[in-house]
C-alpha cells in the first residue's frame, strides 16, 4: 500500500480527516473509503431520502475548444456529439483502433466550439495524451483542467434542497443529463443533473478555491459525507459500468453492452472498424447481471460456472441490503441467456440466477 503522504490530496483532504474519513489510496489520490458513520449507513442515507455528498475531485476534466471541436469529438468518442444540445450531457467512450476502451467519459456541450469532458482519474494521463495526439489533426485546443477543478457529487432525494440555497438560479430548470453554468456561492461553476448512484442529484464542477466553503455549506444543509465504499455499492446496484471492471482495453462495446453509446451511423471514429468486425464475428464474452440464490457474497474475480462448466468471472459484486448478493459478470456468449448459473465461493458452487438491471429501482429524474 502506498504511503498516504506520497498521494495527491484534494482540497478537501483536511475536511475528510476532520469528519473521521478513513483515507485510502485510490487512483493516485488519498480518498475517504468511509467516514465515522460507516459504509452501510452512508449508503442508506443516499438510498433512503437524504442527500449524500461525495468528493470525486480525483476525476479529470478536459476542455475541448476551437472550430474543429465537434469534428474532433465525433472522431475520438463513440457517441454522436452532433446530437448534443447546448447544456446537454451524454455518456460516451474513447476507444483505441482495436475497438477496446481507453476510457468511458461524459461529454458536456457548452457551445458549438466548446465542450467539457469528465474522465476517469486512473486514465487521465493516458486520455489526455491520446486526445492531444489526435487533436494535432484538428483545429482544436485540448486543455487538462483537472488540477484546478474540484468535483463534488450530491446525490439523493434531498440533493436539490441542499444545493439550491448556494445558487443564484433555479435548479428545477436543470433536467436529467442537462447542465447549467451558474454561480455557486458567487463563483462560476458547472452544475449537471447527473450522477452514479441511481438517485436524483447533481455533479458540481468548481474552482479548487471554492471547495471547502461549498462542502461545509452542503454539510450544514444536511448533506451526509459518503465514502468510496458506499459509492461503489450505489453504482453497482445500478449496474453502471466502472473502468477496470466491466470495461477495459480488453473489451469492446459489443461485449460491455455499450453499443447504445456507440453510434455506428455517425461517420468515422476511432475503433469503429474493429467494433463492426467484432459485432459481425460475435462477442467473445457477454456481460450479465446475476443474483445469488444461495448464501454468500459474489465478489470481483470469483469464477462463474454454467451447467458446471467454467464460463467466466465476476467484474463487480456486492452485498446489496435491498437485493442481496448481486454481481455483474462476463460469461461465454452461449451462456448469456441459458444454463444453470453458479458462482464459486471458496471452492464451493453457490447457485445463482440471471436478473435484469438495475438490481435496485432507479430514482433518477427522467
Amino acid at each position: 500500500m502506498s504511503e498516504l503522504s506520497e498521494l495527491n490530496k484534494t482540497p478537501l483532504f483536511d475536511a475528510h480527516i476532520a469528519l473521521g474519513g478513513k483515507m485510502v489510496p485510490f487512483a493516485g489520490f488519498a480518498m475517504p473509503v468511509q467516514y465515522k458513520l460507516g459504509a452501510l449507513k452512508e449508503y442508506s442515507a443516499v438510498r433512503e431520502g437524504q442527500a449524500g455528498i461525495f468528493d470525486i475531485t480525483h476525476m479529470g476534466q478536459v476542455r475541448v475548444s476551437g472550430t474543429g471541436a465537434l469534428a474532433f469529438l465525433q472522431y475520438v468518442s463513440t457517441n454522436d456529439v452532433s446530437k448534443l444540445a447546448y447544456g446537454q450531457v451524454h455518456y460516451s467512450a474513447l476507444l483505441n483502433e482495436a475497438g477496446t476502451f481507453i476510457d468511458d467519459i461524459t461529454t458536456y456541450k457548452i457551445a458549438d466550439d466548446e465542450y467539457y469532458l469528465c474522465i476517469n482519474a486512473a486514465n487521465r494521463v493516458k486520455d489526455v495524451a491520446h486526445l492531444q495526439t489526435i487533436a494535432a489533426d484538428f483545429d482544436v485546443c485540448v486543455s487538462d483542467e483537472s488540477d484546478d477543478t474540484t468535483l463534488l457529487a450530491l446525490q439523493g432525494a434531498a440533493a436539490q434542497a441542499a444545493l439550491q440555497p448556494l445558487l443564484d438560479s433555479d435548479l428545477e430548470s436543470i433536467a436529467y443529463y442537462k447542465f447549467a453554468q451558474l454561480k455557486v456561492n458567487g463563483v462560476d461553476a458547472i452544475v449537471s443533473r447527473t450522477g452514479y448512484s441511481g438517485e436524483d442529484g447533481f455533479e458540481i464542477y468548481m474552482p479548487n478555491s471554492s471547495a471547502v466553503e461549498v462542502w461545509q455549506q452542503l454539510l450544514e444543509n444536511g448533506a451526509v459525507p459518503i465514502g468510496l465504499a458506499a459509492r461503489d455499492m450505489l453504482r453497482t446496484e445500478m449496474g453502471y459500468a466502472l473502468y477496470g471492471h466491466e470495461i477495459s482495453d480488453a473489451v469492446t462495446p459489443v461485449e460491455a453492452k455499450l453499443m447504445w453509446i456507440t453510434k455506428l451511423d455517425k461517420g468515422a471514429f476511432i475503433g469503429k472498424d474493429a467494433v463492426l468486425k467484432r459485432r459481425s464475428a460475435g462477442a467473445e464474452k457477454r456481460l450479465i447481471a446475476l443474483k445469488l440464490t444461495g448464501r454468500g457474497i459474489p465478489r470481483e474475480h470469483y469464477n462463474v460456472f454454467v451447467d458446471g462448466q467454467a464460463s467466466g468471472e465476476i467484474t463487480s459484486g456486492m452485498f446489496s441490503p435491498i437485493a442481496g448478493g448481486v454481481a455483474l459478470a462476463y460469461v461465454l456468449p452461449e451462456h448469456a441467456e441459458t444454463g444453470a448459473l453458479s458462482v464459486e465461493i471458496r471452492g464451493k458452487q453457490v447457485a445463482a440466477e440471471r436478473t435484469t438491471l438495475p438490481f435496485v429501482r432507479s430514482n433518477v429524474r427522467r
Partner: protein
Amino acid sequence: MTIPANLKYTKDHEWVRIDGDIATFGISDHAQEALGDIVFVELPDIGRELDAGEAYAVVESVKAVSDVYTPVAGEVVEVNDGLEAEPEHVNTDAYGAGWIAKVKISADTASVELMTDDEYTTFLEE
C-alpha cells in the same frame, strides 16, 4: 474500543473465552472496527475438528473478505446461527452477541500464542 479482562487474545485479533473444556471464539473490537460493517459470516460445521491457527470462519465486510483463525484446537460444538441473519452483531457486540463458535477443547491440545488483555493492549499499541 474495549478489551475485556476475562478474555484471551491472539495476534490475529481473535478473542477466546475458556470455561472448563469449552472455548468460545470471536473477533476483537479492534478487528471489527478495522473491518468496518460486517455483512456476511460463514460459520464452521458442527463436529469439525479445528487445529490451532486454522481458518475456521470467514467474515465479510462491505469491501473485504477475511479469514478468522482458531485460537485453541478442538471440536466445534456450537455456532452462532444468529449471525446468518444479523452479521452486524459482530460490529455492535463483538464479545457478546457477536461470538462465532464454541469448541470442546482437545485434551492434548496446542494453542496459538494467547495474550492477556494487558498484553493485547500493548500489542495493539506497538
